[in-house]
């Protein structure tokens, strides 16, 4: 899908939760520019997955919107968004190649384009030799790579990536980072959640730190350092620890 000259993404989460009247996340709004990568960070239970599910329209109780190029994502056409879940979602009786074929069919991708892209991505993630195998029989890491390949095959404007590094070996992580760089050059926006802060620091342009369902800090790494009261050389990990400790202390107080 072409990403030429688009204005980016605006995510609005007014309220999101699993039970009526008991929102887990509320009052969050952030944007992602074309070619930008934003990391949604937070400790366990902060609401990262809830935000993701809400943006994907999977929550029963949700008020908000996800705008692509100023329009609701539902009106942005098929293939505007690709979601790469933390837990691989696969179909038992289709081979890896058929999983990709099915994803391509959802966008009406022409055969030649599909074959060229699928072969390139499978070779890149070293899955080409098992393309006629059942992915449900793969290891967790290979299943995760399968989900990444499916996501990249669709070439959307926006990627929602949930914990992309879980189960990936170092070379697959490198491949992922390289492909994400290429997608950035294409103009695709990425929103990712992760606990791997070192990787997030390397690959994200901006960060949104959630605590108890609210934004505690946000911005570039320099902004986060300032908000956390850390020095100019502080790592994201240190800032994260400081911000969470401060929030917990305030909560206790």
């Amino acid at each position, binding site marked *: 899908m072409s990403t030429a000259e688009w204005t980016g993404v605006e995510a*609005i989460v*007014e*309220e999101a939760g699993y039970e009526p009247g008991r929102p887990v996340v*509320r*009052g*969050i*709004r*952030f*944007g992602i520019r074309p070619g930008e990568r*934003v990391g949604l960070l937070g400790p366990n239970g902060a609401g990262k997955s809830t935000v993701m599910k809400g*943006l*994907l*329209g*999977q929550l029963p109780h*949700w*008020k*908000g*919107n*996800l705008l692509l190029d100023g329009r*609701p*994502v*539902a009106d942005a056409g*098929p*293939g505007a*968004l690709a*979601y790469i879940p933390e837990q691989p*979602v*696969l*179909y*038992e*009786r*289709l*081979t890896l*190649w*058929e*999983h990709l*074929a*099915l*994803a*391509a*069919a*959802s966008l*009406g*991708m*022409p*055969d030649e384009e599909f074959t060229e892209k699928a072969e390139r991505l499978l070779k890149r993630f070293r899955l080409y030799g*098992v*393309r*006629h*195998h*059942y992915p*449900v*029989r793969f290891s967790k890491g290979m299943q995760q790579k399968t989900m990444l390949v499916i996501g990249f095959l669709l070439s959307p404007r926006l990627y929602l990536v949930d914990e992309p590094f879980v189960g990936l070996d170092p070379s697959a992580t490198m491949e992922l980072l390289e492909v994400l760089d290429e997608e950035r050059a294409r103009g695709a926006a990425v929103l990712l959640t992760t606990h791997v802060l070192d990787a997030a620091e390397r690959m994200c342009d*901006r960060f*949104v730190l959630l605590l108890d369902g*609210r*934004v505690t800090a*946000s*911005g570039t790494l320099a902004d986060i350092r300032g908000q956390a009261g850390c020095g100019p050389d502080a790592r994201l990990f240190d800032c994260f620890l400081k911000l969470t400790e401060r929030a917990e202390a305030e909560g206790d107080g």
Partner: protein
Amino acid sequence: MSEESRPAKRDARKAEPPDVWEAEQMEEEPEQPDDPKTAEDEEEEEEAEALPGDFTPAGLMRERIAAYWAKVLRSWRTAWDWTVGVYIVAPFLWIGGNLYAEFWREPPAWALEMPPAVPSAMLALAVAVFTAGLRTFAEPGDGLFLRRNRAWTRRMIGIGMLYTFTAKLSVTLIFSALLLPYHLMLVRWPACLLLWHAAGLVFGGYLLALVRDAVSRRWSGWRRRIARIAVVLIWAAAWGWTVSAAEGSPAVRPAALALLATGGAALSALRLRAQGTLLHEVETERNAYSASIRWMLVDAPPVRSLPRGRRPLVLRGSRPLLPGTAAPHRRLADLWLKSQIRRFETVRIYSALFGLGLAAIAQTPLWLSALVWPALGGLLISWLHRLVVQWYDEPYMKMFPWSEDLAKRSADAARAAAGAPAFALWGLAVGVKAGLLYGGFVWLAALAAPAVGWWLYLDLDGWMASFMAKPAAKNKKAGATRDDRQPAGETEV
């Protein structure tokens, strides 16, 4: 590694500090939760014996067996209400009972001529099919602590063997009782022969369970499947031959029983010493539970097993099956069709429906066959449509945005590809029947029927599709707008 370099490597290893050498040795040892007994284990066992209450291997097994049956009965209970009793079970028992009684009141000629070896082999087959393998009631959590205690593990597996033997005994008695009229009235077996026959089936069934257990641990994938089927068939044939020999020579009877009992005891002893069996046992337990409840959940899409092999057994190369898959709706239909062909359950139901349809057409008068034909088509379309709708309800399918038009066109193509051939063949059967009855030009009907059938099927399908549920209609779209108002207190990043 070259031959020359091996001694050098060995020498280098010897020269290394002992801790490194030990570490390498440890890596080579199999990682199994049920390791050989150690001094610590011995101590643990003694402590375990002294635990208060019912916390013993026998007590734990009793709890697990009770919990298993409680779970199965609870599941069965969900499928039972008075309508099932009145409309399904009672008519089945009444009609089945009458048919059974009628069959034995006036047995057909083939039953009189059938040698006793045949029903015995069938009985052996039935006992093997209707009972699970070696049951140990193992749970995944056993690998954490329980399996480190060899004495407990052995005792629990021993109780599992006793359970398996009892299960074989119960099922054998039920099936033998059903076949009692044959043995008493037709072949007039004496009581001692009947008892020997039942004992042989029980001991043989138990031995078979142990052999199948060993086979399942030895192989995986299609090799395991073929080996398991082969073992059952060999057992059924061997038992049939033994029964035949035992009728003529009474000495065969104790010899056969001794052989089966000794074989069972020897394999039991070997099995008790086997290590690293936990994962296999857990899989057996999962399969046993699944087999107990599968019959009432055939319509529930999540109740499915993973494919056994790493690659599909059929259509292995991911190549398209249908022509014209450049069009997305044809590609989707092709993928659906392949996924269904690879599912044994779907193929089984399809074959059964097709076979029953042929039988219905063959057994009814011509005018009724002509009416049965479209009715069968309607049934087939309705079943295929349900499969397509279920497919669009799969979590993987829900990840993608399907336009209603694409989903509908692919569903139409899928039902046509899967159902039209069967419908055309039923048409051929109607045509052949008409040709056989009237001859002459009517044989042209036989030639025309498949083509007419194909056209009729597509017409019937189009008509039925107009009022059937739309596939993918329930799939949600990502990021669907719920409220565009900017809320107070929003955090902008």
